[in-house]
């Protein structure tokens, strides 16, 4: 089905998760360290990376940042043994598209993988019938080519960032609640985690060179959610 690169240092977890994912029909490559994982990235060319946060040597965060410099669009799911708030937030801000807290059931992991892959494949919802390329001030969004340019320079967005931007720009001015964005972008079918949305918006703003105190495009609607406004 899809090619999954699993970077996990604990052999039992690595084998267990790999076994379960193969049963779910995925093509799995497993790496025990971050360095090995980065090597396999070139040879295996995965569709998605499942990355343990605590690795010997190169940490999961470093691996995540390195992967992001090599391939902006490769989806990454963080698997963290520590469910502490700070670990999740740091993981998300390093560029992960989603996270799971271990221990995790194979079918939950599979569902997350499918959800993340779905959103990298398709365009944002509600985009049909719109012109292909939209410009908002200095920002140009190509809905067909799935590229975004600022000042004519393309900016590289991770899948969730791209999808979030596409969702927001589909109806400029409309306020989306975090829950709505969670459902539209991450396809979480449960009462999910607003921090995913917040972390993703933060990364998107950084890539769009938004001044953090007075963002031009993506506005925070306090206590509710976010809204895209063309300047």
């Amino acid at each position: 089905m899809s090619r999954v690169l699993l970077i996990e240092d604990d052999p039992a977890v690595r084998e267990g998760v790999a076994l379960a994912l193969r049963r779910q029909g995925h093509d799995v490559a497993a790496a025990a360290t971050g360095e090995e994982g980065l090597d396999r990235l070139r040879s295996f060319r995965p569709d998605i990376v499942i990355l343990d946060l605590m690795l010997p040597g190169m940490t999961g965060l470093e691996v995540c940042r390195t992967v992001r410099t090599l391939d902006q669009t490769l989806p990454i799911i963080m698997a963290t043994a520590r469910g502490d708030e700070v670990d999740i937030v740091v993981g998300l801000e390093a560029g992960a598209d989603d996270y799971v807290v271990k221990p995790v059931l194979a079918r939950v992991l599979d569902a997350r993988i499918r959800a993340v892959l779905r959103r990298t494949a398709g365009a944002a919802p509600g985009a049909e019938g719109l012109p292909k390329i939209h410009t908002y001030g200095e920002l140009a969004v190509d809905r067909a080519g799935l590229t975004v340019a600022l000042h004519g320079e393309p900016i590289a967005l991770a899948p969730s960032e791209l999808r979030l931007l596409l969702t927001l720009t589909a109806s400029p001015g409309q306020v989306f609640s975090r829950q709505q964005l969670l459902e539209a972008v991450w396809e979480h079918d449960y009462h999910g985690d607003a921090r995913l949305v917040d972390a993703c918006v933060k990364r998107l703003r950084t890539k769009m060179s938004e001044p953090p105190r007075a963002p031009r495009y993506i506005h925070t609607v306090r206590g509710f959610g976010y809204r895209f406004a063309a300047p």
Partner: protein
Amino acid sequence: MRRRRLRGLRFRLVVAFGLVAAISAVTTGALTFREARTGVLQQSQDATIRQLRTQLNQQAAELALPPERSALRKFAQDLAATESRGNWRVLVTYGDLSGSSASGDPFTEVTPALREAVASSRATVFQRVRHDGRTSLAVGMSILFSTQRIPDSVETPSGARVFLVVPQTTEQAYVDALVTAAERAMVAALALAVVLALLAARGVLVPVRKLRLATRRVAEGRLDTRLAVNGSDELAELSHTFNETAAALETSVAELREMEARARRFAADVSHELRTPLAAMSAVTDVLDEDAARLDPDTATAVRLISTETVKLARLVDDLMEISRFDAGAAVLHLDEIDLAESIRRTLASRGWTDTVETELPPPHAVRARVDPRRVDVIVANLVGNALKHGARPVMVRLSGDDTVAVIEVRDSGPGIPSHVLPHVFERFYKSDSARIRSEGSGLGLSITAENVHLHGGTVRAASHPAGGAVFTMELPLRRAEPTEEYRP
């Protein structure tokens, strides 16, 4: 407050000192005054009587008996004249006749009792009389015949009586001066006593106040509070004892905290260490479940059992981690203003409970609150899950709220909670039925619920509904977004 001040140590000390000073001053003053006064008066009166008698002895012979009225007056005037300052007023009587040194003087000082006493006694009679605000000495004596040439002859009353009235203004002035002096001394003594009392009270009260403040600080948890020990009196000993107690308390509290921290760390470490093997096991439970169908029945049962237990164990470890986060104070609120009714609806929908649970929710946006949505979800899911598991259907979720508080009520239609269980339902691992060794949940669910509610500054309580069924009522204070606080991810 006023009553307390009146019963305070300072007040009582001042009163006691004042009373002691007043009593001793009054007693001393009164005794001194009495002796002095008696002495002064006695002396002047003795002198007066002696002088009168001397004059009488010299002049009595000049009085012919029975006398004429004019002779009586003459005699009286002569007697009065012998006192150089002219203070004497003399009255001489013989039967009904009387003559005085000053004509028309009523001699009111000479009372009938005095006259009576002189008539019936040969001795000299005197009386102090207070008249018109002035004290006078009234002396009365009979003139006796004596055969002067023959010593020791019997004297017989002549029937003539002499009364002398001397004003005692000088003596009175002395006495008044004494009283004034005593009064002044007493005021000074009282003032001194009050000052001393205040000083003594200060000496006691300052250390006592310091002790009180220190005790309060210790009660507030500042166990490193110590008192400065000055001197070696009882108060210094008390301060010393206080310091020792505080030190002992600090040591044992530090030990307890250390033990508690160790226990918490242990729980957190154990949970954490359990995660890795559980991560491996959890990942393959589906594989086991899938393959169980192809195995022989005994193995299939065993495999399914392992699969189920792994899922339970994973949840227990999750709950333990959550609890240790609460214990370590690492649980933080990610506040967001949400519509509580919508949040409850989502919680029910995401767990597939929409059709099994009845709801009574206000219209959208009626009850909005600044809460941590994830924690509110956990709270509601836990209470409803609990009701479905341990109570009986129908289960009812009700939300209401005013400007200050939102109330979420979860009620089931089961047998309710026995009253002896009620106080313990939020305790960790509490089993209402000791015979039931394991329940479906981890035994931490309600405990986590309570922690989450408390983190929001709310309250949660369990009760049995009169009509049957358990009722869990949660109250969340509604915190509106503060204008300064921007939720910026």
